[in-house]
């Protein structure tokens, strides 16, 4: 079914509220899903695949395993980045603002691609960022690298296939964030062919064009997903009573 950007954002927000996300996280999580969807990277599908997991366990608080002024390692507690990823991004942003360069690694998290939209927001606030993570795609490993230049709207996303059968990054389900307000980091388009094969390259121009298309045409969302999000958002609603029906909205109040 066709839906609008605003409609999808609102429904996701209420669905996350229904899942018990705290205020603020509901907005950021919804924006992450819709940003990815608007830019052609299947945000809703990513959410759909993680939804049961999200619904079945409460968010684990971020635990800082190591931290100094410019580096932090965080245990994501097996949560989706929808639940805490934006705070990790704000942490790397804050450290880089103070120290010129910062690295934050979140271990033990999933849905990592969903962070793109929030990283784009950080970039618009004058921060160059790079994000890096790996997924198991047996028998190989898929590596994803995102880079964003300060004050620009859209990132560059590269996907590689890596022949690495025993990869700790994959096992750890980690994502690494690097930030600096002073310089941008660029990925190599020609990695060592012995180790990596470039599968996909999405440029800022591609993101911009896709975004424009969505404003014109709306978004396509599977009806089953829509119904599930509606069901979750229903947890925020209050069943009507005769009193609420009569005076709650105001027509017959007083």
């Amino acid at each position: 079914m066709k839906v609008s950007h605003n409609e999808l954002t609102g429904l996701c927000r209420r669905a996350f509220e229904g899942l018990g996300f705290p205020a603020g996280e509901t907005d950021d999580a919804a924006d992450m899903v819709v940003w990815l969807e608007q830019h052609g990277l299947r945000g809703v599908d990513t959410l759909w695949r993680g939804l049961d997991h999200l619904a079945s366990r409460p968010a684990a608080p971020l635990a800082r395993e190591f931290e100094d002024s410019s580096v932090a390692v965080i245990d994501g507690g097996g949560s989706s980045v929808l639940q805490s990823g934006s705070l990790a991004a704000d942490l790397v942003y804050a450290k880089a603002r103070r120290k010129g360069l910062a690295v934050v690694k979140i271990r033990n998290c999933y849905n990592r691609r969903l962070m793109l939209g929030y990283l784009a927001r950080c970039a618009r606030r004058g921060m160059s960022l790079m994000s890096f993570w790996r997924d198991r795609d047996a028998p190989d490993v898929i590596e994803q690298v995102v880079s964003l230049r300060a004050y620009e709207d859209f990132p560059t996303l590269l996907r590689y296939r890596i022949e690495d059968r025993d990869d700790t990054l994959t096992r750890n389900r980690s994502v690494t964030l690097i930030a600096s307000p002073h310089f941008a980091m660029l990925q190599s388009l020609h990695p060592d062919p012995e180790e990596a094969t470039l599968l996909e390259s999405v440029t800022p121009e591609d993101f911009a064009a896709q975004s424009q298309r969505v404003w014109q045409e709306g978004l396509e969302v599977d009806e089953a997903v829509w119904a599930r999000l509606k069901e979750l958002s229903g947890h925020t609603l209050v069943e009507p009573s005769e009193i609420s029906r009569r005076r709650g909205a105001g027509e017959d109040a007083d």
Partner: protein
Amino acid sequence: MLSEAENTMEASAGRATVALRPANEVMDLERLGRLHACRISFIRTLVRKMMRERWRIEHRRFNLDRDGFGTVIYRVTTSEDVYNFVLFAQELDDSQRTDRVIANAWDCAFALVQGDVDEASLQRLRENVPKQEAGRCDASVIVLSRANRSVRNFEATVQALAEGRQPDPAQLARVGYLYRTTAVYGNGKFGIADYPRIRERGDFGLPFSAQMFTVYLLRHFSIEQVEHVAACRAGDAAARMAPAIRRYLGIGNSTGLGMAPFLISHPRLINQWALVRETALARVRAQLADRARRDRLLTLIERAQQYMRETFVDDERQAHENHVVIEQLERAHAWLAAQEPDGRPLWRELSDHARTHWSLETQEFLHSLIIELYPGQIDELERDMGASEQYDLVPDMTLGEFSVCIETHYDWALAIDFEHPDAEYFFWYRSAEKEEPRLGVRAEEPGVDREMPLDVARGVRRCHDAVQAYRHVHGDRATVIDFLIDRPGFKAIVRRIQAMSQTTYGEIRANLLDRGMLPMHLLRCKLSFFGVTKFDPRSSRWVRITLFQGAPLVEDIGGDFDDDWFLPAMPSRDSGEAST
């Protein structure tokens, strides 16, 4: 663009410089609830644009049966694009006619569509538009709405025209419309176009302008429909409505609490509207008067008095306030007439005098009137009525800095005693019935566990307390992000405080949970920026209003335009008889 960075809290005009009014005065809910429409309200801006650009509005289809049911399409050509207003009118049983959002059927349903509509599109619209919330539209639709007849006015008007006479102007002064809209949807609702799709375009780039234009076209339809039904009943004996009476017809609207959450979830936009209005006021207050403008203001005050005398409300509080306004406008008129105007900052003197002597209603009415005196300095401000609502955290702000930020900009919220039992008397929630926002009594009604986060003042209080406790342990150099990783539940309010502290006017200053809070003030605040008139509260949470009363007609477009149509006087019966 009037931006916060450029704003210097003052407006200069020629020799004088006048400060903007302070936030604690402007954003007080009691005052916001007394605002009146003014020349930068959305309806006024839209009419200026439409008239100056000579938009063309033509019939493309007018298939109504003798009772006025059927399909109507108006094709609109602007300097930039083509739109079609597509309306479906149907018979509605009286028992189904309600203005509540929870209704499922209406006298008519309509959409404003970008581009032309072919038969396949029309069929899709026919299948979905009458269903409103239960239907699905696509991104070619930019506004979706519905309306119900004012049954008594509609029938009386048809009857009068069918009998070859004009409708009674006195009745139209009481209820100045044939139709009431009950919701006007834009910005992506039910699959229609997102606002960013049209924001960059000239026609409807300003907030709510597409919605207001759609209502304007409904007004045109209501006049055409009533004449059509009268003609079907009486043939050549039926009268056409006199132009003066046509112009006196507006469109009604019923609004309840559904509007309130918008105000709280769009604080930057509300700040921007207040900033623009206050800038307009400051620019005028900085002017030195002259006799011609003083005389013009005297005329406007007389007109305002007559308009208020021809405004009828049942609500005791509003009726009393209107009575006071009429009486105080008389005094304002006398005060102004006694002044030697030339070379004096007379508008500022009048404003200051009003502030110390007259009611909030009268003060704000006078402000709307004096803004009329300098269109050349004011109208350009209409372009600045938009704002983005995305807030970014400042994660590296120290908690010491953040505490100062709260205590400086939210002192009004910290001053509220939340220990008092009345301070959390109400709670806001969303009903399972069409997700309608409602207000409940905390101690009596279920749903507190699903309370909507409209409690900005209480949120600020809780956040401040939590930050102080964290500072006590971790020190002033701890940052906002340190605090939030520990207490993620405060993220929304922290970000809001940081963002709104950067604005001139910030938040609406009220505790929306308080027993004494009047939701009506929230509704009126927003509606005044729309440019509506004749506030007619039906309860403390529900108001009927009128839009476009006095506005030029479709047939006036292309002719001379004097942007002086607001506050129309009731036409005389004589004004109509001649056109029978």
